[in-house]
């Protein structure tokens, strides 16, 4: 097989892996948008906040240490213990549920029935607020996140492909794990929404608020639940991204990559978020590989947005969205 083709296949696979992360972030958006019509700008910051909280708990950091020290004249930074990864993840889940509850009770419930743009603005406010809180709580320096996920080149794939094609594929173990975990997460979400009482209620609320109320569903409860699930998805995305490139504020920018994913997949479609994420992941890697050298590279910065723009022009409802027909 010609080298160029093999190299292309490797790029393709790596793109697929990168796409999984985009899909995860987009999934968080879709969950909240479906259930409440809110475009949650803070989804990316939630991933950052979750990752920072996880690292903070694992390292035994004292939350709000800077503030506490400034107010009480102390010099505390650390509890002096470390917390095992699984326990820390469980604790972070609890924190994310608490966050979901606070978002609903202090912000969103006061905005029920407002215009979508108002709700959107509220989530922008939330994003900056949360970013500030994350900073204040855990400090702003870049941290490494190591929950024990395997990293580095997968030797088996390298060897097998080398034996077969005379060219060893470089696939990162972390990417493989991320893909498996993301797939499990999506399966769990589907099972949850199809087969549990709360899942059924969640779908009902996503479809019609009035009807949901009339069959005895508390919208408040469902919205806390949905924000919690989105918080959990954010945590998973945060762990993957953090393990890959360290926990830092640029993490919140992956939210921006989720936007073109949503335009491709449609804002209300879970399969859309997944397929959209994969297409963007593969697309930008392949484009950089094939066209990049001709235009001087760095196409990954803009490819996704241009693709989204094309979609907006030719298929505004996205891949899986219902066709938009204006009623007159």
């Amino acid at each position: 097989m010609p080298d160029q083709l093999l190299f292309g296949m490797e790029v393709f696979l790596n793109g697929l892996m990168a796409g999984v992360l985009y899909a995860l972030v987009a999934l968080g958006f879709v969950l909240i948008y479906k259930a409440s019509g809110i475009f949650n700008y803070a989804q990316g910051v939630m991933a950052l906040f979750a990752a920072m909280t996880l690292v903070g708990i694992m390292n035994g950091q004292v939350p709000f240490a800077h503030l506490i020290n400034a107010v009480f004249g102390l010099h505390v930074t650390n509890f002096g213990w470390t917390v095992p990864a699984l326990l820390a993840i469980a604790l972070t889940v609890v924190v994310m549920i608490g966050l979901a509850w606070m978002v609903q009770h202090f912000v969103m419930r006061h905005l029920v029935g407002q215009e979508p743009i108002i709700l959107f603005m509220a989530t922008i406010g939330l994003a900056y607020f949360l970013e500030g809180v994350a900073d204040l709580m855990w400090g702003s320096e870049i941290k490494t996140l190591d929950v024990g996920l395997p990293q580095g080149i997968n030797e088996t794939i390298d060897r097998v492909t080398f034996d077969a094609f005379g060219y060893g594929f470089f696939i990162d173990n972390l990417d493989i794990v991320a893909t498996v975990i993301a797939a499990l997460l999506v399966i769990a979400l589907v099972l949850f929404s199809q087969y549990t009482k709360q899942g059924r209620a969640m779908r009902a609320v996503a479809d019609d608020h009035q009807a949901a109320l009339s069959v005895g569903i508390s919208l408040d409860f469902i919205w806390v639940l949905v924000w919690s699930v989105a918080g959990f998805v954010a945590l998973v995305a945060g762990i993957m991204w953090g393990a890959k490139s360290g926990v830092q504020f640029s993490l919140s920018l992956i939210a921006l990559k989720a936007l073109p994913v949503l335009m491709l997949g449609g804002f209300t479609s879970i399969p859309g978020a997944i397929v959209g994420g994969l297409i963007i992941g593969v697309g930008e890697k392949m484009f950089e590989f094939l066209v990049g050298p001709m235009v001087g590279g760095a196409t990954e910065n803009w490819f996704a947005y241009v693709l989204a723009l094309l979609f907006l022009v030719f298929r505004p409802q996205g891949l899986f969205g219902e066709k938009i027909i204006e009623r007159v």
Partner: protein
Amino acid sequence: MSTQESYVTADGRTIGPTVMEMKNITLRFGGVKAITDISFDIREGEIRAIIGPNGAGKSSMLNVISGFYIPQEGEVWYKGHKRPPMKPYEVAQQGIARTFQNIALFEGMTVLDNVMTGRLNHMKTGMLAQAIWKGKAEAEEVENREKVEKIIDFLEIQHIRKTPVARLPYGLKKRVELARALAAEPSILLLDEPMAGMNVEEKEDMSRFILDVNDEFGTTIALIEHDMGVVMDLSDRVVVMDYGKKIGDGTPDEVRNNQDVIDAYLGVAHD
């Protein structure tokens, strides 16, 4: 006739004591008085109609009963207890189911799924238990499915069980909405214009279903309806509203002969 003593109707149904009582309800929207100082009661097992011209405040009254509107004044008594202000979902959990004038179905779901949501209140098993203790959740699901299939048979919508609701014609949607309300096995069923926009044949079907529900399940029903013929045929007692006020209350015969009611319906000028 005391409202606490049971009696048997001409067609052999037993009407029990008062199950719901509205006392001096007043509801305002800004300057608009939708309901002015209205009192009436609903008795166990009866079919109670609320009638009146457009904008009389009928739907508003139903919304007060179901918790969608909170009245500024007045009290709601249910099963002998004064009800504190409640959210609609809490009212639903107390066994009061409803349909809407403008149909509120889950358009993206099938008929079967829509009717299943009516059973949410009867699903006991918690989230965690469902994940871990699959057997119990399955048994519960089977039981709920059986109840739902019975209702689907009862309302003769078997042939559209798997059809997405969005594809159904108006008349069938109304029937699915009734099925979903019934699935909750409510003690009171509130129907806001269940026959609006239907042709004669569909109206006859719907009337028959309402009578059968009341007869076979003993469900108390309060309904709003514009078609006088239907109201007179179906209901045991009728409340008549006009411009937010109660202008009549009694058996169909009584209200038919009430001069205020006749005036309201003949469009005699209000001073």
